[in-house]
């Protein structure tokens, strides 16, 4: 139970941190914000790696493998495309 409460505490506080930061992001950067925040939501890859690597059953390994693939697409694609966009914003300044 303690673990759950600690988790909820972190969840709520992180939402407040998110609100504080995100409201300061100018509209010009809203698309990179979406792709960039999307990339970090690929953090699920952490859970995917644990499922894929711990070899409990064939089924969990398969589910884990698929999850690693999808989450990695999300992470790698997200960060790269964000970088591509942001580089365009930067080069004129």
């Amino acid at each position, binding site marked *: 139970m303690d673990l759950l409460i600690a988790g909820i505490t972190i969840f709520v506080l992180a939402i407040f941190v998110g609100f504080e930061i995100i409201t300061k992001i100018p509209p010009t950067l*809203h698309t990179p914000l979406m792709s960039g*925040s999307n990339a970090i939501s690929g953090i699920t890859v952490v859970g995917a790696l644990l499922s894929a690597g711990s070899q409990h059953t064939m089924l969990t390994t398969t589910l884990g493998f698929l999850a690693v693939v999808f989450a990695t697409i999300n992470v790698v694609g997200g960060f790269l495309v964000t970088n591509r966009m942001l580089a365009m914003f930067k080069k004129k300044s």
Partner: protein
Amino acid sequence: MPDLIINIGYLLASVLFILGLKGLTHPRTAVRGNLLGATGMFIAVIITLANHNIVSFEVIIAGLILGAIVGGTLAVKIQMTDMPELVALFNGFGGIASVLVAGAALIEATLGTGAPLAQVTIAIAASAIIGAVTFWGSLVAFGKLRGLISENAVLFSGQQVINTLLALIALGLSIGVIADPSNFLLYGLLVLVASVLGILLVIPIGGADMPVVVALLNSYSGLAAAATGFVLSNNVLIITGSLVGASGIILTQIMCKAMNRSLTNVLFGVLAPVGGGGATADDVYAGRVKSSSPEEVALLFDAARRVAIVPGYGMAVSQAQHPVASLAALLQERGIEVEYAIHPVAGRMPGHMNVLLAEADVPYESLKSMEDINPSFDQVDIALVLGANDVVNPLARTDPSSPIAGMPIIDVDKARTVVIIKRSLSPGFAGIPNPLFALDNSLMLFGDGKKMVLDMISSLKEN
């Protein structure tokens, strides 16, 4: 590696994510911010691989390589105009990853001795629902943006009753998963029902409301990650997921405010069909619309000192961003002040126009938000509207019975001359005529956006 070090590594990753998002508050620091986020992700992955529960690396490495190749290729190949559909797709992938991880966690939890904790199974059910809704909702959004399925609102009777029923069934199945975790069929059914729900929730939403949907699905993908964090009792997932959840919700709010509609109205309400009170297109346009040519408009620029370019989705469709930037550069060479007035919901995702113009090397200082530029629009000599319609429709200010009444618009009608580049007089997504096109100070340029701008450039260069 001891848990202590692993957890400190996750904390470091979380801090880097927060600093990374903070970097996005200014174009100057944004690239570094993105790199910080990527570094945080790298640390999180490396630390996880050191976990003693991981006994085999072949499957992991295969998955990482395959994912990196697909993701990298998509990121490098995608055209900037297609960015909304790529973001929609990536949102969905985050969602499905949560469904898969929660499914694996459910199986693992039932393997051990004793029943899994209720808090774990609750989080597993939540991951399944949010993840599946995100995945299928995002695929529908992707299909709509890509033109694979009708971009119009797809409506059928009893839609909301069915959605409510599906939500209730999902809730019932969740209780089943929590009560009997070892019955994997229940989990499968839960994912199935949530998938259908995800499809049905997005299919009735029309193209112009896509910025809201993409932002909302972005938020869901974060919440799905947070729910998976509760499954694994993993703080880095909880923190990151809530950051992304908050980000998506804020963007959703901004988009809704920019359309003067509530989120419920965007998701479940449909813009009232025109009929009864509203003026018909013939009443508004008959005999009053003046058609012009690129050559005539080019002459107008001779007397102009301040020009505002107002891009809309039409600019993305005709890929006109590069010619538009060249036109602006040409005008600036002649001492004309050129700015871009950007409505928050122009395009198909938040900030869509800004990215396209950045691609065309337009400095971000000349991209003005609606609030910044509206007060001085009466000092604009020429407003050049390119493929925008509802967001410049003065009916939003003047006609309280109009479906867009109260929506903030860019006040182009206050400019001395308004030039509107558009293929025809067809209405925008709101389905109503636009009196702007019939104003005394309006000139229509009927044709493809890119071609019209290129013709203007060559006329300007000739004289």
